[in-house]
């Protein structure tokens, strides 16, 4: 019953909030209530106690429960942020639907159903990308439609590849058909490409940069935190379900590590180029995605701990980044086309949030990414300098990119620092435009930003409980024991 509630309760509420979608305040309160109820349900479901429904096994592992609780909490945070930040008319119902889908994926073991549900989350996210605020007097942007279309195509292709791979695993017998291309390699290749598409690893990353560029920040935040992290967990489940794939093909694992390194280095290098704030953030997310994927592909206990911890950190840091971005992009009395260099001075909480989120993705202490990055470096060091050095270079690139972007957009001189021009002949003080008095940052969103920042700091300073939980979860993973 609890499993069914966890799956269907948010879906029914999503339908209700869709009907009420124009009453934003009410809908947000309903969604917050739903998330709280879901949190309660998730804590009531016993861990590792499988149940059968229509021939499908549903089970909640300790790791899945942790991520489910994190996702629900972050969903709640996103609803709070939606109170003041711009978002589409259907943001709340779509997010509830995504939470239901993601929750179901975390409960499932069947690879076919998981693949289809992941693909369905992609379809749901497409609706959010092209969503306009209620009563908007503008047309949906063509680039937003293009970003949605790109996302749709890539997610369906990823699902198709993943599905073919799982069909092959269904009939795959180790050491069968000698002389032919090993099915294990073929399956791993299909899985690598499909998950690279879902996780936006270079060169399959363009959907993520487009998403960050053209969708609302809250939508980008939700898609990256919920969907990308869930895909990573599914990949872990695949390794757990089919460990033979890994020890049949050590070369494929090396290729996956190489792909992760290339992804992190290229994303770091792209972050170096002068670009908009959104673009730089997208590259930072890509860099971190590459690092996390490296940990998973290293297939070692340390690397896997780094990957799981990194994925957890990424969810918090990315939401912090995008909530801060939404705040920074609020109208501040200047022309929309005006270049802004003093955002930290103008919006101090949001500026600090963006800085902290970026630093967390880079793994700089004392923020939450530091420990996970250390674990990833440790896993790379075990493989040799050839793998550690590129990862360090990638971090350096991304760090310089963040510093350059922060200097350009956040730390520039304030408008008031510019010396006032002397009065012209016949001009009086009254002829001058009045000094702009800006509203401060909205309290609830500023408080949320500070809370997320404190969570990042708290995890960074005291990571032991999470590390202990991750260690416990990893001990239960068969493929790590086998390797």
């Amino acid at each position, binding site marked *: 019953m609890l499993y069914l509630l966890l799956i269907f309760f948010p879906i029914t509420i999503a339908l209700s909030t869709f009907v009420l979608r124009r009453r934003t305040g009410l809908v947000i309160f309903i969604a917050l209530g739903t998330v709280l109820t879901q949190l309660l349900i998730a804590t009531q479901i016993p861990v590792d106690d499988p149940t059968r429904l229509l021939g499908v096994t549903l089970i909640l592992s300790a790791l899945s429960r942790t991520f489910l609780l994190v996702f629900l909490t972050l969903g709640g945070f996103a609803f709070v942020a939606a109170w003041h930040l711009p978002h589409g008319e259907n943001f709340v119902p779509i997010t509830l639907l995504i939470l239901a889908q993601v929750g179901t994926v975390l409960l499932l073991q069947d690879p076919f159903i998981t693949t289809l549900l992941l693909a369905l989350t992609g*379809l749901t996210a497409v609706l959010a990308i092209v969503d306009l605020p209620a*009563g908007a007097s503008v*047309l949906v942007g*063509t680039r937003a*439609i293009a970003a949605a*279309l790109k996302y749709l*195509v890539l997610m*369906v292709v990823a699902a198709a590849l993943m599905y073919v791979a799982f069909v092959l695993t269904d*009939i795959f017998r180790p050491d069968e058909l000698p002389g032919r291309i090993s099915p294990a390699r073929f399956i791993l290749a299909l899985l690598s490409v499909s998950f690279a598409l879902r996780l936006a690893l270079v060169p399959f990353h363009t959907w993520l940069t487009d998403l960050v560029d053209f969708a609302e920040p809250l939508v980008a935040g939700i898609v990256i935190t919920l969907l990308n992290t869930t895909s990573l967990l599914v990949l872990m489940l695949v390794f757990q379900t089919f460990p033979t794939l890994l020890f049949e093909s050590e070369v494929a694992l090396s290729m996956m590590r190489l792909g992760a390194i290339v992804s992190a280095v290229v994303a770091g290098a792209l972050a170096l180029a002068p670009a908009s704030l959104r673009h730089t953030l997208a590259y930072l997310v890509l860099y971190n995605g590459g690092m996390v994927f490296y940990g998973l592909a290293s297939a070692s206990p340390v690397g896997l701990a780094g990957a799981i911890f990194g994925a957890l950190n990424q969810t918090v840091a990315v939401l912090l980044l995008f909530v801060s971005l939404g705040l920074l992009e609020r109208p501040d009395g200047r022309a929309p086309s005006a270049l802004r260099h003093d955002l930290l001075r103008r919006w101090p909480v949001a500026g600090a949030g963006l800085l902290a989120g970026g630093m967390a993705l880079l793994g700089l202490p004392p923020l939450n990414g530091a420990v996970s990055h250390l674990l990833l470096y440790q896993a790379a060091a075990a493989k040799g300098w050839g793998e550690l050095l590129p990862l360090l270079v990638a971090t350096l690139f991304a760090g310089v990119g963040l510093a350059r972007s922060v200097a350009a957009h956040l730390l520039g001189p304030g408008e008031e620092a510019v010396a006032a021009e002397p009065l012209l002949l016949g001009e009086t003080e009254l002829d001058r435009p009045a000094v702009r008095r800006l509203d401060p940052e909205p309290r609830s969103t500023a408080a949320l930003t500070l809370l997320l920042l404190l969570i990042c700091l708290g995890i960074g300073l005291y990571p032991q409980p999470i590390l202990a939980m991750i260690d416990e979860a990893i001990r239960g993973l068969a493929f790590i024991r086998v390797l």
Partner: protein
Amino acid sequence: MQINWFIIGIGVTAAVVLLFRDWRLTVAALLLNYLASALFLAEQQFVPPDLAFLGRAISSLVLVKVITGFAVTMILGVTALTFEGEYGLESLDEFGLAELRRAARVAQRQQANAPFQLSDYVLPFWASVLALLASLTLPRVYPIAPTEASDFAWYWLALTGLLTLATASDLLKVGLGLLLCVSSIDLLYTAVVSAPQASGLNVVPVALLSLFNILLALAIAYLSGLLYGRLKTLELSELYKR
């Protein structure tokens, strides 16, 4: 040698989707493709028949595939037929309305200046030849499904789907390419997983596959409607131009 007409049906209809541009032709071809796939599954009897229909025993799975095909093509067909409607204009400001008028003028001019050109079909034609060669070769080189016919069918659907995606010039055709790819994995799943040495078909993935097909068609219809409402055309080149 016995001719398998259902395989020919799958092949011809997928080729029509890949080659032609007129949505009336391609959406109709997609419907026939779904029907041919369903009849192929019935003929191959991957799943034991459990229904009597017109004096023949068929599996309920075949019926599900037919209903899915009808639903998908209905969604796309109805969307394409109602493109001309104008929705949500009341909330637009003057700039938005002016933008729409300008887009309508541009689209009208383009339609008037775009006569039939044979060169538009050269790339899809050679792509279909390539797909045919690959689909004939791959079942021998890398057989996956229990029969060569089903291997040809899923390889052909997957390749024509991917090549339709690669050569598509409008959004609806991109959608048709995606639907062909999904049909391909649907056929592969049914053929392989129902084999004696495999794990066996489960009702939930089969139902989810059909649901996914329908929701994908809805997503394509929604995006097509948005794009047409915005630019009065489905051409992808216009989407990236502005």
